[in-house]
């Protein structure tokens, strides 16, 4: 997805994990994904560099669709669609 497409996504759940270091964002994502429906979009905000690698790999293993990451402003916005 392009950055413009990511920005225009209708996000069902935004998880702000910017206050935590690894493995905080991954655990927050894991807990939050259980609260949304299949097909819903979730966004994880993280300032942890490792998260932008961890989350796409986690999505692939869990069967969720990783949609892309927006970088900038000192943190990452990572988008995924629940399987």
């Amino acid at each position, binding site marked *: 997805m392009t950055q413009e497409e990511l920005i225009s996504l209708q996000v069902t759940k935004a998880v702000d994990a910017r206050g935590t270091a690894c493995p905080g964002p991954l655990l927050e994502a*894991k807990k939050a994904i259980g609260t949304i429906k299949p097909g819903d979009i979730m966004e994880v905000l993280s300032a942890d560099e490792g998260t932008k690698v961890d989350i796409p790999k986690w999505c692939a293993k*869990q069967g969720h669709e990783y949609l892309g990451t927006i970088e900038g402003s000192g943190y990452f916005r990572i988008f995924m669609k629940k399987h």
Partner: protein
Amino acid sequence: MEPKKMCLGLFSGSVDKLTAAGIILSGAVADDMKVDIYVLLQGARAFRKDIGDNSEKLQMAENPNLKAEFLESLKTLKVKTWVEFFRECKTISDVKIHICGLAGKIWGAEKLDDFIDIADDICGIGAYITATQEADVNLFI
């Protein structure tokens, strides 16, 4: 599909290695792994009710002179204590904590009630060996 199984032999009772175990455990439960933790020798001391995440009572395995710096950095980065990691992981996936009976006795703790409340049972070495044989991933810390 059956969840993948991880078996963790937790020998260490040092604050740095316990924290590492908590971080690894977090990754495992994020992947829905079933985890069995067998708490051995030094590890059992840390699980005593009067010790747990009281860092004053725990050693560092590596660079003991840097313990204060290590703990301060964890605090600054808002990293959970090892007990908090273990406790949270038990709410996310199937994580069972088994305390070696001999290890408990060495440190003066014989009953399950002598350990922090995240411990599930007291077991013998046979249970640990069986779990290692059945696990997809084996770690020893």
